[in-house]
């Protein structure tokens, strides 16, 4: 019985030594990493309460940072979508007749900076107003039509810069027949600069939240290190290098980051799904082309990757510092 087993041993050994090349060593190394990666996952799952606590707090921090990002990127997109509807409204003087108005429209159409001009006559304006405002009956009581004719001027697509639009507007404002020239863009520009400021603040906040994630991982790993103090000491005593001792903790840091990242991604996506419906209705109401921007695959990967990296960084910071303090005794 024993000799049979020994033969088997020998056979396996020769087989192994044949394969022992560089490739074999690397694949062996990878295999071992995979094993210890899974081992540290099981270890985390073996203490579900502690793990869940840390992961929840981290996931919340990452969710906050991620939501900020989503908020800003969606606001940017919203503003941009508004911008494509940019137009200049010319409210004409009360005394201007529809004929005069359409003549002005003709003139403007000849302007090379202008793509299109539509005329809303006094009657059309009134009809529209009656229909949408709900003041129909009250307006019926009015004598005459208080509303001016309006020319809606759509500048050429090539006019992208704000100053070009402003120039065009000033030019039209100078027309005698024009009472007020109003650019629907003005508040959009203002909004854009607000969003820029907000995105800076968000960047700062996100950095703080990232730091928080590093600290939470570090703290969790620190207490785990204390719990496994004996193991660290004994491993050192039997000739384990610091790298060998570090690895499981770095893996643990990775898992903390990774799991919280995935959780945060889920929460963010769920939140977006929840507001997608109502937002769609709102968007329809404003005749906007706006569509809610979900996290792309790239962004999702980045989110989870960053979370994992932060976890590893937190673990590394603590382990590399603490391990030097552990003296085998």
């Amino acid at each position, binding site marked *: 019985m024993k000799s049979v087993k020994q033969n088997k*041993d020998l056979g*396996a050994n020769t087989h*192994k030594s044949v394969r022992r090349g560089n490739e074999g060593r690397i694949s*062996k*190394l990878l295999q*071992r990493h995979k094993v210890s990666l899974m081992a540290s996952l099981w270890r985390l799952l073996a203490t579900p309460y502690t793990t869940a606590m840390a992961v929840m707090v981290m996931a919340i921090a990452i969710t906050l940072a991620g939501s900020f990002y989503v908020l800003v990127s969606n606001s940017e997109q919203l503003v941009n979508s508004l911008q494509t509807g940019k137009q200049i409204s010319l409210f004409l003087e009360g005394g201007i007749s529809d004929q005069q108005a359409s003549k002005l429209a003709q003139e403007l159409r000849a302007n090379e900076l202008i793509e299109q001009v539509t005329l809303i006559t006094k009657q059309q304006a009134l009809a529209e107003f009656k229909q949408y405002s709900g003041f129909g009956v009250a307006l019926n009581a009015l004598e005459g039509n208080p509303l001016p004719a309006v020319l809606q001027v759509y500048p050429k697509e090539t006019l992208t810069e704000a100053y070009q639009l402003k120039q065009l507007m000033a030019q039209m404002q100078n027309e005698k027949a024009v009472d007020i020239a109003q650019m629907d863009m003005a508040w959009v520009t203002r909004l854009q600069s607000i969003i820029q400021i907000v995105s800076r603040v968000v960047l700062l906040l996100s950095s703080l939240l990232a730091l928080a994630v590093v600290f939470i991982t570090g703290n969790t790993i620190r207490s785990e290190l204390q719990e496994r103090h*004996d*193991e660290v*000491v*004994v*491993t*050192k*005593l*039997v*000739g*384990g*290098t*610091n790298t*060998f001792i570090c690895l499981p903790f770095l893996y643990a840091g990775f898992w903390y980051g990774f799991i919280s990242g995935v959780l945060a991604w889920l929460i963010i996506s769920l939140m977006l799904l929840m507001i997608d419906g109502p937002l769609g209705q709102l968007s329809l109401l404003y005749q906007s082309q706006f569509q809610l921007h979900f996290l792309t695959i790239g962004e999702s990967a980045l989110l989870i990757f960053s979370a994992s990296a932060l976890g590893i960084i937190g673990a590394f910071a603590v382990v590399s510092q603490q391990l030097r303090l552990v*003296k*085998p*005794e």
Partner: protein
Amino acid sequence: MLTFDRVFKRYPDAGDALSDVSFHLDKGEMRYLTGHSGAGKSTLLKLIAMIERSSRGQLLVDGQNLGQMRDRQIPFLRRKLGLIFQDYKLLFDRTVFDNVALPLLVTGMGQYEIARRVRAALDKVGLLGKENKYPLALSGGEQQRIGIARAVVNKPAIILADEPTGNLDPELSAEIMHLFEQFKQVGVTVLIATHDIELISRFDHKILQLEHGRLINQHA
């Protein structure tokens, strides 16, 4: 293989634990290290394994000067040693198998080879069949033998044993001594710290005797 040259060890506020210790052990030599409690036996062994650093003097292990050794090299020194601790230093949340496998695991040895060697080591200390038990489920003597198996599993060049038979009955003690003698036969240097007069009288080997940190009788 092992040379102490005028070695001193002073603990910060406990005075000299070792003073002016000089001796030499060849490859394949086996010695007892004796002395009263607190004489410095464990301290001497700790210096060899770099668990403590000497305060003064020169210490050579397998040709390496420990005074010049960097922290990064310590693990590789320890892989040449088989350490048996007075307090066993077992991991109670790991099976007997995993405890004994640890010195091999840290070297990156393959699982198949590890399993083979661990079983061989457990066989030598008479614990084959208890691989999957946890240390707390075993008796004091059995726990001590886990520690011994762990010390010999990596085929060390030097075995340093601190009271290896403290919890063993005469019969088991004799078995462990036979095991050490087998290792000595194949060229392993063995140093055994012990109070066990009966053991010393039964298995005759040279003695290093410590008294208050000094070697007093090198050849008894």
